[in-house]
């Protein structure tokens, strides 16, 4: 299986504090890679570096595409999603609460729709070409809503949904930009066991059907062990282990990091 993401010697320093120290790991195509570690290990910092929110102090992050590899350092702000096709979700759900479920999914398809609307001119003239494209976008939204079972709530405000549904919506919204790499920041946080199982199902579906690589930060071990093909363990900003889910469960270093060592 080829590499999708190569992180090489990534270092992130905030003043005197080193949040990430010389981190290197790979995430493969069509696989689910989880990043785990105790709180403060630097997991969200890695995400923020990958998705253009922080500028790394050192190191490289490459995304491998068909045409070759691109350096994620070059993309900041909205370009990460628009050009590099890296999507992410957030620890604290960031939906557009006053907008409907459908509208949330349409905003995700903004860029194609903008072009289709002729930067609004065709749209203002209500041309058929735009209307058709808009219908396609709605169809795509319906497709994803069907998968997560929210189709009949498409016109409700997204802020009115129960928490578990909001999480799922955030994920499928990210999928609407057709990303190559999907970064999920603690998607199972706050979910009960039934909802976690549904989340697992959704992520496996995405991996299999959409051929999108998934990078996951998680604390919930039922999710991590249930679906990960590959696990990277961080502690104090350093990688202390990398391997399959089973290997991770049994690794001495990982157990020490989480549970401590008998003195």
């Amino acid at each position, binding site marked *: 299986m080829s590499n999708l993401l190569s992180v090489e010697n990534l270092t992130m320093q905030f003043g005197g504090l080193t949040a990430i120290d010389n981190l290197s790991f790979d995430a493969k195509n069509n696989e689910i890679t989880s990043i785990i570690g105790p709180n403060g290990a630097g997991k*969200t910092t890695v995400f*923020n570096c990958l998705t253009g*929110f922080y500028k790394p102090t050192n190191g490289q992050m490459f995304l491998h595409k068909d045409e070759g590899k691109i350096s994620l350092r070059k993309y900041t702000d909205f370009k990460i999603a628009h050009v590099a096709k890296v999507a992410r979700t*957030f*620890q604290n759900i960031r939906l557009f609460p006053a907008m409907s479920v459908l509208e949330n999914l349409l905003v995700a398809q903004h860029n194609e729709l903008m072009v289709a609307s002729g930067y609004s001119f065709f749209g203002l003239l209500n041309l058929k070409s735009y209307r058709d494209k808009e219908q396609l976008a709605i169809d795509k939204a319906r497709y994803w809503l069907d998968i997560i079972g929210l189709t009949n709530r498409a016109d409700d405000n997204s802020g009115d949904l129960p928490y578990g549904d909001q999480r799922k919506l955030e994920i499928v919204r990210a999928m609407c930009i057709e990303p190559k790499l999907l970064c999920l920041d603690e998607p199972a946080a706050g979910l009960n066991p039934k909802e976690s199982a549904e989340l697992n199902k959704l992520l496996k579906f995405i991996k299999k059907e959409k051929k999108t690589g998934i990078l996951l930060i998680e604390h919930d071990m039922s999710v991590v062990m249930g679906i990960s093909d590959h696990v990277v363990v961080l502690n104090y900003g350093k990688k202390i282990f990398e391997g399959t889910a089973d290997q991770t469960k049994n690794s001495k270093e990982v157990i020490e990091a989480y549970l401590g060592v008998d003195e």
Partner: protein
Amino acid sequence: MEYFIQQLVNGITLGSIYGLIAIGYTMVYGIIGMINFAHGDIFMIGAFVALISFIIFGLTGVALPIILLLVLLIAMLFTACYGWTVEKLAYKPLRGSFRLAPLISALGMSIVLQNYVQVAQGARVKPMQPLISGGLEFFKNSEFVVTVSYLQIFIVVLTVILMGIFTYLITKTDLGRAQRACEQDRTMTALLGINVDRTISITFIIGSSLASVAGMMFVLYYGVIDFYIGFLAGIKAFTAAVLGGIGSLPGAMLGGLLIGLIETFWAGYVSLEYKDVAAFSVLIVVLIFFPTGFLGKPDIEKV
């Protein structure tokens, strides 16, 4: 050269006045995250109260230094009442609301205050005889004599004293700590048993008192006031607060001095009519390169 020094002196004086008003803006912004649009009009009310007090005391035969002290205290007292009331009426009910709500409320309050004073005191400008006159002269033998008036010295010295007092207040006392805690995390501060409402009220009272001192200085320095002086001084003082870094007390004073100097030098060397434009233009330029001002804390939103 002498002209330059004169402008420098004038600029520092004006800057002190702006700085005192700016402190009010920066403290309020720091603690409840809103621009108190009505603050400039609080300054204007301070000026009016000072004017009225000066007139009354002028009729008595009391010595000048006593008058200054009394007027200072009276202005601070009555203006603080205004600041307190405005907070309770227009801002406190909106503390949980979205960002724009207190801003509109503040705008409305500003309009109310301006027109209230206009109705109560009349729309005409109010002149006053200069109370403090005379000064020191330098470079007496050159073409341009630099005059540093006693009034200017008084203003700057008073400003320095007040800065000292309030910096001590903020950094060393319980109140200051409570204030800084509220700035960081209001909910947590309340959970720790600190009376957040009272802390916020005191912040407004302090800001208003300092603005009233600026008002008193304005009356003495310019000799004429009207109900509209709050608007322009207010925007410039807010510009100063942003320049220095919103939320920072020394930043507010620094910003005030900067604005005072920029305005004075621009008026003196380039163009008198466009001096107000200078301050705004500087603001725009600075914010483009320093979005959080010179001494401001950068705003890192946690993702």
